[in-house]
């Protein structure tokens, strides 16, 4: 009996335990089932960004080029400033294909990290599990494997400006977007909290 009470208490505690990321926010009943990110959602736009990547104090720069090639898949090519491709990938919510990659970048850990980061940036559809709000913002929570994604949008325009990828207790990756028209992200910053990796993307008007 005592064990049952303890178990029940633990269960209640665990279930009601708020995520660190939405501390100070109020959980509300969710009307939305899906949150659609406006960024990288057009099938006719060539998304070309100047990219600066810093890894443990070292830096690598080039161009990040993305295009939506079907309903759920994006083609992503990373090139040097001179134009030669360093990697060519196809990324969907469930799919991941490496079309080509230079030897130096062809490492499991690099590919896994970039795959997860690019998915966060590119994904258009997020299936909502919970919804939170405060005075200015709404936060949509979706499940992503063993992690959760928290999508921060301002309340008025519903404009996405931040995604936090987190476990129940710890934030892992933060992606920030700035956009003047709400459709195209002019700057994107990806910051990892457990490794020293940062990616900065600046949109290039072609």
């Amino acid at each position, binding site marked *: 009996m005592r064990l049952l009470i303890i178990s029940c208490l633990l269960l209640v505690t665990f279930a009601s335990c708020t995520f660190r990321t939405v501390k100070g926010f109020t959980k509300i009943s969710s009307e939305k089932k899906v949150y659609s990110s406006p960024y990288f959602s057009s099938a*006719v736009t*060539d998304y*070309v960004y*100047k990219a*600066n990547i810093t890894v443990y104090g*070292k*830096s*690598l*720069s*080039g*161009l990040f*080029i993305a*295009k939506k*090639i079907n309903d759920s898949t994006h*083609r992503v*090519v990373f*090139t*040097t*400033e*001179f*134009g*030669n*491709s*360093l990697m*060519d990938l196809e990324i969907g919510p469930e799919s991941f294909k490496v*079309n*080509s990659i*230079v*030897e*130096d*970048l062809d490492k499991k850990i690099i590919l896994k990290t970039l795959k997860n980061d690019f998915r966060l940036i590119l994904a258009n559809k997020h299936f909502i599990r919970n919804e939170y709000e405060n005075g200015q913002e709404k936060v949509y929570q979706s499940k992503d494997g063993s992690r959760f994604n928290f999508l921060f949008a301002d309340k008025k325009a519903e404009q996405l400006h931040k995604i936090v990828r987190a476990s129940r207790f710890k934030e892992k990756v933060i992606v920030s977007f700035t956009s003047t028209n709400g459709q195209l992200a002019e700057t994107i910053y990806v910051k990892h909290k457990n490794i020293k990796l940062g990616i900065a993307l600046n949109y*290039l*008007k*072609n």
Partner: protein
Amino acid sequence: MKIRLLLIGILFCMHSWAGFAQEQKMTAAEMESFKQKVNGVSKKISTLSTDFVQFKHLDFLSKDIESSGKMFFKQPNLLNWKYTKPYNYSIIFKNSKIYINNEGNKSAVDVGNNKMFEKINKLIVGSVSGDMFDEKEFTISYFKSKEGSMTRLLPKDATLKKYIKQIELIFDNTENTVKQVKLIESSNDFTKIIFRNKIVNAKIDDAAFNH
């Protein structure tokens, strides 16, 4: 890793004003005369400055990615390749070092005895001095077209082959200098660089190569 990626990048653009292309094959006599003319011009080059426009073509994009800038070269081995649009990025070769200025963030890489660097350096200088028809490094074919004379180079080196399937250079028929370079990757995507406002042997101050 960084050095290698960097060198691959540089290699890509540096062939630029070196020289290759295609169409109607040159006869043996035409080939000889063409080589002599190009070598003759190249040997007299002590400095070179030019504007360039670069087009990156990827089949899945609706438009080529365009960038542009300036290039300065001074014998024997000073080189500044500088993008000014749509971003500021320059790479300077000086005293076995590569200096990069990426939107104001400066860095330097010591390439010392790096073999790939030596190859690139040889290609750059060779393309200016006339020592560029290197049959050891490339299988070269010579063509003529309305646009000008063209050479097509197929790399022999295994490392280079991985990144570049073919290089095409188009030469100006009157000046016998390179006016366009096309670097084709194994995927058939390519980078095309067009040179404009080329100035040969004008005084270039050493400050043009300051980091």
